[in-house]
């Protein structure tokens, strides 16, 4: 029993070649018996026929294709594809070689940042160290010892007082007699002979304007 609705639902399968031979024969037989279904089928088939004609009309001229091919060829050359030898290694080399020749695509900013970081790190590593040798050679220890050193200072003396030291001179002579080495200063040697035991007269004496005194501070051994 022919059912127009069912037959028309099968028409796309017929026009798009999705029917097997027996189903196709059965459907075509039904179309012969039903003008409505047959008209629908012819209409759909005509549509595809006209479409094909229009599609062919839209195809470019033969002169288009060589230029198209050359444009594609140029694009392969500009493409960062694998170099032949690298691809050969990838395809047939053992795992360790493939690992060694492996590459990873990274964005340019990330690559620049990584290279900059690597360069700075290398520079810092190659720079000579500022620290003492002790860090490099821990077996040499520095021993700290405190030594008292006399610090001479020059001072300007604006007033000098001379005193009679005859009594002291007497004691000094006694020490000389005991065999002690006494270093007498210039002032003492310039004095008048104590044997005369006279009072020294400072009239007419003219001292120097300045005298350098070496004052030794601290715990210098006496």
């Amino acid at each position, binding site marked *: 029993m022919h059912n127009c609705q069912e037959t028309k639902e099968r028409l796309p399968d017929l026009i798009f070649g999705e029917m097997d031979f027996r189903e196709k024969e059965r459907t075509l037989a039904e179309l012969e018996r039903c003008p*409505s279904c047959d008209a*629908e089928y012819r209409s759909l088939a005509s549509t595809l026929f006209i479409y094909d004609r229009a599609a062919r009309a839209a195809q470019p001229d033969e002169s*288009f*294709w060589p230029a198209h091919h050359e444009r594609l060829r140029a694009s392969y050359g500009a493409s960062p594809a694998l170099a032949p030898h690298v691809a050969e290694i990838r395809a047939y080399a053992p795992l360790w070689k493939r690992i060694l020749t492996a590459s990873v695509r990274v964005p340019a900013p990330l690559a620049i940042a990584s290279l900059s970081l690597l360069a700075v790190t290398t520079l810092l590593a190659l720079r000579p160290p500022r620290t003492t040798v002790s860090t490099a050679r821990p077996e040499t220890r520095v021993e700290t010892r405190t030594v008292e050193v006399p610090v001479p200072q020059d001072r300007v003396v604006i007033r000098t007082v001379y005193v009679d030291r005859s009594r002291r001179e007497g004691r000094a002579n006694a020490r000389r007699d005991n065999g002690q080495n006494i270093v007498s200063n210039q002032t003492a040697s310039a004095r008048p002979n104590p044997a005369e035991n006279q009072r020294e007269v400072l009239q007419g004496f003219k001292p120097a304007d300045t005298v350098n005194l070496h004052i030794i501070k601290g715990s210098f051994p006496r």
Partner: protein
Amino acid sequence: MTDLSDELELIRRARAGDQEAFCSLAKAYERRVYLLALYYTRNGADAEDMAQELWLKAFRAMKDFRGESSFYTWLRQIMINSFLNHRRGAATAKVSSIESADQFFASTKGLRSFDLEENVHRKILVEKIFCALEDLTPQQRLIFLLKHHEGMTYEEIARSLGCSAGAVKKSLFRTVLKLREHLGVDEGRAESNDFIPCAAGENL
């Protein structure tokens, strides 16, 4: 490329990075790919861009081709993915890429040296077919091209697009009805819009 052993040799060399071998391999399919891109985009410049992008993808992915299917089957899946991505991009941009027949023939050097009447007739036909294709959704258009131009089965198309065979059939039927309307084909006595030949609830 008629000799299968020649193609296998070209594939082997292309996988090893031989650019010339890939060029020779591609040459056999360049027209087919470009024309599909042309019918899909309805625009000569877009078709050129799309074809170039597809071939570059294939060139870069060649080392991954394992020969589990034919070279063209592998290439076609890359093409389908490119078309779907292009569709998403175009949907985001919301820019119609259709061009007039004059622009189209200028960009593709499509007009051969026929007489004036023939050329006028061709222009009308091309404008009609582009308008018809424009009226389809990108997925309807892709399904129609895969079926009518590529000869894929409902099942193959469904697998490639991740939908059901019933949805493919329904989409094709709607496409033919739209084409019929745009191309001005007489519907005859049939009231073709009264039936939809696939499972209910599926919509493309």
